[in-house]
């Protein structure tokens, strides 16, 4: 087929396994609790809904540039990547394994709206166990990095999980938030947040504004190779030691940010307030060009 087709391998459109294979060294991935073990959701079965043999998440071991890592990827297309009891237990087990076996890092390809509502308390418990396990791995000195560029983004409990990571790689298609746009609109009304205004949703939750605000460590193009490159860069950087002083500094920076952008309606207002050139055109730039502008603004 044409060269064109081969060079383009979208992260956004890839499924969970394809993302993992695009991320890690070729042939290095070995799956844990894989689909052949048929660990399917008992809750969905009771509700007479379709189940998936992997419950919508793929976990296992691999190498990245020869270094041993653990990796997990959520399947956004299966029930919105939602975290049910089995799904959450697989991710929690992966992070416990990281604590016990000390790989170079854990990579979590997040693509989820949060807790699987069908599983109610079991899902809530699963996601809180997942958060505790993530902090356990970090406390053991294993850095955990999140990768966000799928159709479901990272919302709800998985938005919190994302922010517990040592670093985040996002594409501009990725979204990160706590309450999803539909939830905010339902609770606070359409004047507060019009969830059908796609541009507004992305200007508030999308990868580019998250990179601008520092919540995303790296912004990469929507490409499997670009995410792999980003993961290698974070691995090379190593996990920063987070002492109390660093947390206090983060808190002060967040307070200053909240004050500075108190009147901002969305990302475009923030780009303008930061004095970035051609703020209206930033959304059209590819990741490299965008990063150059943000890096320059940060060093200035």
């Amino acid at each position, binding site marked *: 087929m044409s060269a064109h087709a081969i060079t383009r391998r979208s992260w956004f459109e890839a499924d969970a396994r394809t993302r993992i294979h695009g991320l890690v060294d070729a042939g290095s991935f070995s799956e844990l609790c894989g689909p052949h073990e*048929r660990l399917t959701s008992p809750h969905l079965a009771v509700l007479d809904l*379709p*189940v*998936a*043999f992997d419950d919508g998440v793929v976990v296992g071991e691999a190498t990245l540039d020869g270094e041993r890592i653990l990796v997990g990827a959520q*399947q956004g*297309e299966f029930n919105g990547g939602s975290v049910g009891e089995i799904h959450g237990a697989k991710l929690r087990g992966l992070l416990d394994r990281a604590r016990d076996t000390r790989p170079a890092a854990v990579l979590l390809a997040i693509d989820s709206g949060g807790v699987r509502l069908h599983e109610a308390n079991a899902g809530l418990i699963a996601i809180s166990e997942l958060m505790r396990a993530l902090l356990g791995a970090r406390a053991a000195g294993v850095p955990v990095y999140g990768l966000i560029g799928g159709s479901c983004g990272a919302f709800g409990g998985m938005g919190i999980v994302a922010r517990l990571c040592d670093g985040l790689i996002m594409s501009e298609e990725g979204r990160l938030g706590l309450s999803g746009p539909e939830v905010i609109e339902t609770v606070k009304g359409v004047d507060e947040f019009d969830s059908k205004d796609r541009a507004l949703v992305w200007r508030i939750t999308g990868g580019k504004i998250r990179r601008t605000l520092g919540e995303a460590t790296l912004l990469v193009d929507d490409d499997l190779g670009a995410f792999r490159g980003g993961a290698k860069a974070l691995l090379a950087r190593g996990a920063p030691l987070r002492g109390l002083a660093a947390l206090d500094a983060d808190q002060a920076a967040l307070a200053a940010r909240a004050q500075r952008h108190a009147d901002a309606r969305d990302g475009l207002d923030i780009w303008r307030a930061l004095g970035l050139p051609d703020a209206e055109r930033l959304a059209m730039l590819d990741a490299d060009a965008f990063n150059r502008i943000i890096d320059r603004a940060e060093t200035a």
Partner: protein
Amino acid sequence: METFTLDLPSTPANGARALCGVVSSGNLEILVDTGHAPDRCRIDVSTSAQGFRDTWEAVLADAVARHPAGGLVLSINDAGATPAVVSLRLDQVLESLEQAS
């Protein structure tokens, strides 16, 4: 959900394990495991679309006639895929086995 099992004749395949597709609206996953009789293919279907068993039987019979699938067990979780999508996924997973052998 509607569930049923078919047992169909097929030429022997190279036994292997595989997975194809994702359970999402209009799509399905097919899990391949090794079975017993080398000239039979067992297929377990679980589908959210009620009342299309005869269509499934026709699609599956054609697929295991097109590709060697003897000695395999196919397990299908379906969320309302059309026959076109089902056929495409069956082709994809069975051809991947042929190429691996």
